Structures are given as structure tokens and as C-alpha cells.
């Protein structure tokens, strides 16, 4: 690449400006996170007297972390969040791909209406039905269970999942399926066979649902608030509320809740961004 050399001086100036703008915005995006992390390992007075200083031998203090680990069940919260997120993703992908397969593959009376019906939920937030969801969950004996959360997130994620997956299912070549049918494969078998072919689409749907489910506060707060079923997001919210006057503990718990998400994000950022930019929303 010899772009730079080919550019006129005016264009080089523009390039510099562009980098400055991007750098400035990146700093704005990361500075608050940075501030929380460095102060989480400092003593109480150092937090207030020199917030921007990196921790040194005098100010180093892990009292916040000790308090968090003594007074909360963060490992359990993580397990709950993983259960709910993985469970919801699993059912969204399974039920969503099955329905998408039916809509894309078969001509049957009511196909279009069914497609429209299942797409209704794309734009209407499920939160508006909260009062009835709470009552329903109580009646089904699922109050304060992770299963209730999984079902709710599955219902909320299905419309977009079916919409996206149907588009991709339609693109699977006919010959392949017909060949399998000639070989006497059942419809279920052929469905299973096509799944690997739409892997990128399944990945897109998964990352699309992962972040909102992991980060949701509303339904854990209302449907499953007990200590045994708290998700990380609710656990952090409650813990932060409990220790709100103890800045050491607050900064430490913010860091603990943030770091795993950021690490996961960095690992999966390629898939996430590919999902977002693959024209999934069309």
C-alpha cells in the first residue's frame, strides 16, 4: 500500500484530522472505564484526593475486593447469567430455526399469515406485557425461576431470529435437499442437514441476543429477584445499592462485573461485528 505517498498534502492533513477525531472519541469511550478500574485498587482517601493517579505503593488497597467477595455471591450470579443466556440462546436458535425452516421450505395454507404473526414482535417491546407475564409466571408455578427468564427471553428473541433465519433458509440450494429426499431422508433429517449451511446466520442471531439478555435488569428484577436466582446484572445493581456509600466496594464490584464482559467481547468481537455488519437488518 502506497496510499500515503500518493496523497496530496491537503489529503494528508485530512487523514491526520480523521485520526485525531477517532482517537478523541476512543478516549471518550474508554476513559470512564479506565477511571473505575484504576481507582478500584486504591484506598478510600486516595480515591477522592487523586482520582487520576495510577495506584502506587502508598495508595494500593484491595479492601473493596475483599468486601465484595465476602458479602456477595458473584460466582453464583455468573452461573445464573450463563444459564439464562445459554438457555435462551439455545431455545431461540432451535425453535427459531425450526419455524424458519417450515416457513421457508413448505408451501402450506396460512404460511404468509404465520410469517406475519411471528414477525409482529420485532418492533413491540415485550416489557409492555410485564404485568401479565408476572401473573402468568405465578400461575404456571414458575415464579422466581431461571426457567421463566429463559422462556421470556426466548419469546422476545424469536421474532427477529425467525425473520433473519427465514431469509437465509431460502438461500439454501434446492438440489441438496432434493438429493437427500431422493435418498429417502426424513424432513427432520434434511432440516438438521441444512443447519450447518446457515451457520453464519445462526451466529448472527446468537450475538444479537446475547448482549441484551446478559445485560437485562428489568425481568430479573421483577420475575426472579431472589438471592439464589440473581443474574450478574441484578446482583451488581443490588450490591451497588447496598454498598453505595462505600466507594471502594462499588468500584471493585463495577470492575468485577465489567471485566468478564469486556474479555468476552474482545474474544467474540470479530463475530459480533461481522454479525452486525453482515446486513442482518435489511
Amino acid at each position: 500500500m502506497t496510499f500515503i505517498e500518493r496523497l496530496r498534502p491537503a489529503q494528508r492533513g485530512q487523514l491526520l484530522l480523521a485520526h485525531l477525531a477517532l482517537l478523541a472519541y476512543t478516549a471518550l469511550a474508554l476513559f470512564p472505564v479506565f477511571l473505575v478500574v484504576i481507582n478500584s485498587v486504591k484506598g478510600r482517601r486516595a480515591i477522592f484526593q487523586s482520582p487520576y493517579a495510577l495506584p502506587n505503593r502508598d495508595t494500593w488497597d484491595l479492601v473493596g475486593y475483599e468486601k465484595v467477595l465476602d458479602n456477595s455471591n458473584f460466582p453464583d450470579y455468573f452461573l445464573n447469567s450463563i444459564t439464562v443466556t445459554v438457555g435462551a440462546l439455545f431455545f431461540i436458535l432451535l425453535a427459531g430455526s425450526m419455524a424458519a425452516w417450515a416457513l421457508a421450505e413448505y408451501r402450506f395454507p396460512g404460511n404468509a399469515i404465520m410469517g406475519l404473526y411471528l414477525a409482529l414482535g420485532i418492533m413491540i417491546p415485550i416489557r409492555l406485557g410485564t404485568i401479565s407475564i408476572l401473573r402468568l409466571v405465578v400461575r404456571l408455578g414458575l415464579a422466581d425461576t431461571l426457567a421463566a427468564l429463559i422462556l421470556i427471553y426466548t419469546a422476545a428473541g424469536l421474532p427477529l431470529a425467525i425473520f433473519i433465519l427465514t431469509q437465509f433458509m431460502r438461500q439454501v440450494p434446492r438440489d441438496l435437499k432434493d438429493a437427500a429426499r431422493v435418498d429417502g431422508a426424513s424432513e427432520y433429517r434434511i432440516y438438521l442437514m441444512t443447519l450447518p449451511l446457515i451457520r453464519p446466520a445462526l451466529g448472527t442471531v446468537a450475538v444479537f441476543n446475547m448482549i441484551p439478555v446478559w445485560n437485562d435488569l428489568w425481568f430479573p428484577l421483577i420475575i426472579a429477584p431472589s438471592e439464589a436466582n440473581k443474574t450478574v446484572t441484578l446482583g451488581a445493581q443490588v450490591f451497588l445499592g447496598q454498598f453505595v456509600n462505600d466507594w471502594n466496594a462499588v468500584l471493585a464490584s463495577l470492575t468485577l462485573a465489567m471485566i468478564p464482559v469486556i474479555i468476552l467481547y474482545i474474544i467474540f468481537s470479530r463475530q459480533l461485528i461481522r454479525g452486525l455488519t453482515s446486513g442482518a437488518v435489511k
Partner: protein
Amino acid sequence: MKKLLALAVILTLVVALVPATTQAQDKVTLTIESWRNDDIAFWNDVLIPAFNAHYPDIEVIFAPAAPTEYNAALNAKLEGGTAGDLITCRPFDLSLEHFNNGYLVSLNDLPGMEHFGPVARSAWITDDGSDVFCVPMASVIHGFIYNQSIFEELGLEEPATEPEFLELLDAIKADGTYAPLSMGTVDLWEAATMGYQNIGPNYWKGEEGRLGLIDGTIGYDENGFVEAFEALARWTPYLPDGYQAISYPDSQNLFTLGMAAIFPAGSWEIGVFRGQDPDFEMGAFKPPVPEGADTCYISDHVDIAMGVNAASQHQEEAMLFMEWMTTQEFAELYSNALPGFFTLSDHAITLEDPLAQEFLSWRDECESTIRSSYQILSRGEPNNETQLWEVSAQVLNGELTPQEAADIVQSGLEAWYEPQQQ
């Protein structure tokens, strides 16, 4: 993708089995719902181990929410059937509503209930007096806590009257090093609870004014109740910079970091401040009386009690815990572990904390009353207590004059409360 799916299935199954195995334990677990998140360490380190010394097979979990979120969260949990076994009771109507809705069980037959007199029971009893549904735990007394080293440095003395109080605040402000009063308005409730209800009884003459509101002979827009708003409005110049965005926890930090001199307080702060900084030297003075007044009044508010969730699976164990809460041992531990919470039982106990002792001594010097909005007056819409929060914060923010604030609260009360409509 197949591998990933298989993994997902296995994970889901594995994790789904975990709760089943934990339930198989023999120990019964009681969960306590509370808004006292400041007390989590006291419960875990002192009270629960003391209870377990008698009942080792009952595990107790203290699971508090933030005070501002407690009521909403508890209502949701009760409605959803997901609330804990033991419910910390707010005084008067909120708990009464829970009892009437069948969420709390009657404690008439609880052994040990005889240690609580009619005053102690009054906040957790049905209107006809037939059922008591929470074991009274403690009352809290309002007043002011100050930083002793700042007072010594500036050569200040505890004020007895309002003019002395304002003079004192002027002196701290003139020095310029410290914020005179440590209070913010963003959380609303402090302005009403630690401001209006703290100094108010001196102006509306305690029970005389409060009962007058209930039988309709006096209004919020008259005499003492307006004067209390006026006294509150005089605090504004002495609040810390940016007080409109300072939350309750911020103001606690401001005080214990030594950046503010006086904390308008409830006695429960004693324990919080000792926990934040055990070496912090504090003194306390009672709400200053208006010039020329010869009687002082304090808010000695029946604040906290505990009841049993009717939907609890462990009624028997919950009752054992309730019974333990009526004992001398509990009263002693609670009042000393949480200095500033004063037992409502008739057990004779000694307080180890001198500051708590100071607050308690005011009971002998002054007339006691409770917060004006709690009994009966917060049953309708608009809610009297909520309105007091809103207008008190706005008076301190300079958005409302004292008279405007008083008029809003009065018309809110008149909108639904018959004795006030005549």
C-alpha cells in the same frame, strides 16, 4: 455449530440440576427482606450467629435492598410469591396493607409479645386493634451529629435554639474550609425525613400538631407546619456545593471524610459512621428550638419491625425466629450492635455507645412524637409522605417557597382526606 449446540444442551441440563441438589439439604433456610442494607455486616456477624447458637439447624440469610427500592421490590415479590420468609415491616399503613392483603400472618399468639406495650405495637396493629402482625424492633430519634474536631478547631459550641444554630452555621461558612451542613436533595427523602420531620416537631408542638392533622383541626398550611418549612428553607445557603446532585451516600461520605461539619441525622447513622471510620470523633445535639420556646420536641419514630410472610414454606421456623426477637438477648444485641436503634421492648438494657446514649437521653428532656405523615395520612392519593419528599427537596432547591410547599401538601391531603375537607 453442532458441537456448540451439544455443549449448550449439556450446560443447560447441568445447571438446571444444580438448584435441585441444593434443595435436598436438611437445613431450613429463612430469608429476611429488609431495607437496612447498612446493617448487613451486623446481621451476618452478630445477630444471625447469636440466633444459630440456639437453633443451629435454621440458616438465616439477610437479603436487604436499597431503602429507596425496598417497598417497590417487596410489593413485586409479594405479588409474585417470591418474597423471603421474614419481612421487615415499615410502620403503619404499608404493613397494614400487606396484612389486609393476606401477605403477613397475625402474631397475636406469639409468646413474648407481652414485652411490647401499646405504643410500641401501635404502628403494626389493625385499626380495630384486633391483630398485631409485626414484632416491633426499634425506634429512631432525629437530631444532628457533628464532627468534633471541626467544632474544636473553630471553637464552636452545640446550639440550643434556632438563632444559635444559624449563627453556628454562619461561623462555619465564614471559615470556608468545610460545608456547614452535609445534605443533598437528589434522593428526595432526606430533605423530608432528616430535614422537615427532624426539626418540625418543635414548630408544630409534636403530638398536638400531628394528631391535629389527623382529626382535621389544623392543616399543613397553618402555623407550625408552615414555620417548619420556613425553618427548613433557611438551610439552603449552608448546604454543600452541588447539593442538588448529592445523594444520601454522598452526604455520608462528605461527613466522614471530614469535608462537612454537621450531619442532619437520624440516630441510625451512628452505626453507619462508626463503620465507615471507627476513629471518627462525633458529638450530637437535639433539634434546636425556635426562639422563646420552653419545651423541646423530638421525633422518636417507631421505625422498624419484623413479620412473617404468609406464603413462607417454613412457618414454624419463622415463628421461632420471631419469638427469639422478643427476648432480652435480642434487645440487648440489637441496640448495641446497631447503635441508634432503640429497642421498643420493656427489657432493661444498657447502651454501650455514648452517642446512642446521648440520643436516648433526649427522651427524658423532650416530648416525643412520630413523623407526621405515617399514621393514616398516607392512605390516599396523592400520597402524603411522597408529597412531603417532593416539596421538601424543592424548598431546599429554592424551587418552591415555604408557603407554596405547604399549600401543595395541604391541597393534596384535602383531595381525599375527609376530616381535612371541612
